[in-house]
């Protein structure tokens, strides 16, 4: 499988990253070289192998169901690129 410029456009839309034409050329070259490299995996027969998403053999534990009050609203909002009183401000979503 190989990636062409249309696929790059499609992925960049999915990833919410706009790419310039120059960037598309470079990405096409690099992504194809990475894909070619990872396609070595096709040599392996993995029909009877379980996929693993983690190596941990630990069961997830439950934390105590208790309220912890963290009143850091002002500090947290200090990091917002744009805010209005207690709200984050974003460009208009609905016309």
């Amino acid at each position: 499988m190989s990636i062409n410029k249309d696929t790059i456009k499609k992925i960049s839309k999915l990833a919410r990253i706009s790419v310039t034409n120059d960037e598309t050329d470079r990405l096409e070259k690099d992504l194809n070289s990475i894909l070619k490299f990872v396609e070595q995996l096709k040599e392996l027969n993995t029909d009877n192998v379980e996929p693993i998403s983690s190596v941990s053999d630990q069961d997830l534990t439950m934390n105590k169901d208790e309220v912890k009050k963290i009143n850091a609203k002002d500090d947290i909002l200090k990091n917002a690129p744009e805010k209005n009183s207690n709200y984050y401000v974003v460009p208009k979503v609905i016309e």
Partner: protein
Amino acid sequence: MSDLTKLTLVESVKYIKEKKCSATELVNAYVKRIEKSDKLNCFNTKDLENAVNKAKKIDTNKKLDKTLVGAPIAVKDLFCTKGVKTTASSKILSNFTPTYESTVTEKLWNEDAILIGKLNSDEFAMGSSNETSSFGNVLNPYRLNNENLVPGGSSGGCASAVAADLTSATVGTDTGGSIRQPAAFTGIVGLKPTYGRCSRWGIVAFASSLDQAGPMTKDVKDAALILDVISGYDEKDSTSANKPKSSFLNSIKNNVKGLKVGVPKEYRVDDMPKEVDDLWQEGIKILKDNGAIIKDISLPHTKYALPAYYIIAPAEASSNLARYDGVRYGFRAEGKDLTEMYENTRSKGFGAEVKKRIMIGTYVLSSGYYDAYYLKAQKVRNLIKMDFDNAYKDVDVILTPTTPTAAFRFGEKTDDPIAMYLNDIFTVTANLAGLPAISLPIRCNKDGLPLALQLIGKSFDEQTLLNTAYSIEQQVNFKSQVKDWWM
């Protein structure tokens, strides 16, 4: 001691406890060196004034019982530090100040260690040469005929800072080799603990099933001491391990008699430089001479580790980095509507390598490709894990080189992503299998550059790893060859 910054971490703490120097004297010695070392570009943020104030407080209070009392420690700029800027070396987080402290760093400060700054790295820990940072390259204190070299990556600022005596020790993070490879390039010790040994809470996430924090230090005992402090169960990270532990430092012993050491034939890769192969043989000989039993072993799926990694890590990264949207924190670029604001923010906020990995990750997780790439890689990951499970039926620990070469020049591998990724060929297997691994400097090559060996241990058996590394360290007696050319 005329220069306090030459002390190891263990020695520094001992000095303070025995009142051979005050915390203020120790911190000031580091501050003086840091101020003359801007050329190395190790620091994203310095916190020198606060550090001096904290040291004065320790001296006034005269309470010297804590494990790391007075030790000045800079950490990778991937650990959230309350009230101190945390950037992941990315433009997109360049103005982010966390409102909370990561568990690992909190444990350091609870033992009265003193934060002196945040260290440069590859952007979001993605890179093997520290060349992807938004804040410029870090220089390796080692040079090749007066030419600058990369410190390795992603924890390049950490590695150079320890090697150049700008911090008494540090903690980095390792997703595919990011502690061990830079440690190897700069002649220091780097330990990636077992997955789950240390809490990931408050660490900027790259690939959550692979990321692990760990010590980068001047010697093996320092690594044991840092691991003692930063490890342990944390209810804020459900993958942190609930295992009993004793003191790694107090249990360390120089004894490898009867230890079964595996030497995997698959790590003898094509065109490995002779000096690296010789180094490996040297390590084998040292262990053998000290009573260890050497066994040839096979880890048949080794060659597939790096390809599997370059599916799994970008897949997890593309998901983790979705949070950087210009809404709640970080950099924002304007756009005519919400979607365009997202797209412009992420396009201008992320660097080229990060974008590349998000794109690969998005592709392998996208409809129609998920099974062929992502699911396949997860199966191969299991094969790699089973390779180790089988090997550990016969051996206690595995010995390999850490990297296929010594440190290289800037720009040498930036044009070819695969050439850069091959740096992690020996380190990435431990991340996929979740195993602990340590890089240990052995000696310098004919050009005066450090070379290192790696030990990979059984799950949660960092003690055997530390003991074996300590035994080798006692034999090779590696001495730093850093000359202060930048000062």
